[in-house]
């Protein structure tokens, strides 16, 4: 069922992680380790470097679990944020090593993505958007769930939720705009 794709990382796991349940770290690694590793590999281009980033992300995440707030951020999106920072740190470290400032700046400012990096980026983006969706509140969240995952039209959503058509349309516009903005700030270009 498609809707399950969106909600198959239970918020209860976020809380268990924050509470120090090591099994959830293992579970998070099983679910998101390959995504983190592949993102790092596509950006850094070296398996050894991708290994370092992968290890660092999960070690960092676990060490900062007490300051992780499950009500403010979902674990998958939080991990992706840490991964993006770790990847950018790795690029900076590499640039320091090479002592070639111009080349380094170019490298950091404009990493050349490997072929097909886009697909993996989109999977990571989806995790980010899922967090944004969960911050929408109700009834916006339910409206967007029905539109996205149950393929209802705004007419059908209006009858299903017994909300005025205008309200549904306006929520859809604002929610969609918010998702678009989140993607734009994540990547810098629309």
């Amino acid at each position, binding site marked *: 069922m498609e809707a399950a794709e969106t909600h*198959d990382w239970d918020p209860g796991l976020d809380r268990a992680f924050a509470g120090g349940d090591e099994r959830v770290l293992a579970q998070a*690694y099983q679910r998101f380790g390959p995504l983190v590793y592949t993102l790092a590999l596509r950006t850094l281009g070296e398996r050894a470097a991708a290994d370092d980033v992968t290890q660092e992300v999960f070690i960092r995440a676990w060490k900062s679990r007490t300051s992780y707030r499950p009500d403010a*951020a979902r674990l998958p999106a939080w991990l992706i944020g840490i991964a993006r920072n770790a990847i950018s740190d790795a690029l900076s470290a590499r640039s320091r090593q090479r002592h070639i400032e111009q080349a380094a700046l170019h490298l950091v400012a404009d990493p050349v993505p490997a072929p097909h990096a886009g*697909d993996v980026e989109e999977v990571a983006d989806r995790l980010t958007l899922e967090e944004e969706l969960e911050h929408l509140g109700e009834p916006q969240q339910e409206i967007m769930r029905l539109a996205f995952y149950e*393929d209802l039209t705004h007419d059908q959503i209006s009858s299903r939720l017994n909300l005025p058509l205008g309200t549904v349309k306006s929520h859809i516009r604002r929610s969609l705009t918010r998702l*678009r903005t989140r993607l734009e700030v994540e990547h810098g270009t629309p």
Partner: protein
Amino acid sequence: MEHLDPELLSLLALGERLGTDAEADHLLSCPTCSETLRSLQHAVHIATLDPTGIELEVPGSHNWTAIHHALGLSPSLAADPLTQQAGGDPSPAEKQPLRTATPGTPSTHGNDSGRTPVPLRSGTKGRRARTGPWIAVAAGIVLGAAAGWAAAGALRDTGTPAPVSTQSVPAVAILAQTALSPLPAHTGSGNAQVEQLPDGSRQLVVRLSNEHIAGFRGVWVGSADLTKMVSLGVLANDSGSFAIPAGVDLAQYPIVDISDQPYNGDPAHSADSIARGKLNPKS
């Protein structure tokens, strides 16, 4: 003709077939509306993305061993969670699209598993058929929209005159932007963008969710390797605007950094960063 109603564009992005002939014509000829539709469709595309067929690579088992060792985790968790999966559960890949299936050979261990690209899941893909024409043609979107309109035969008047668009020419130009992601010990996240005002001056607009910190929040731009930092001010609320001195070349200072600054009178960066992002220039 005035720009299309933003609500109509949102519903079109979701794949609904609406609008008048005049609105379809406008969409064909208006770069602003078609670009807005394209970006909204992209958001729909990401939100409804089916990861089927997107290949991820599995990190080698030495990675989990290193994590397990560094954190001193329980011995019961010593086995790599990614290779463990090969046994027990017969159908995890069907239930969890983002879970990566184990490499083909169950006996594969260690580094070798890291070399095997693995499809995420086999299964059916995609949203309902009615969104097909809309979602599929991200590149030729305007043409696709018009074709969809015609093919659907579902033209109808929305009954409301299109209001003046909110997408009109912005008073300020956005030069660059970035998401701000929390650093390990922190949770705040948000975004920052560099705006050029009509008078040519630049400002950094920061939005960051609040979290409890001991000090106050300093706003900085820094070099890519963070060896050089320029302080732009103090972020007192969830958002704030900060003038960027004309002499600061953002190509040299592409990092936006928000720090937790202790109340000790020391003007230097505390080395305790809350959130960070790298500015992406807008082309």
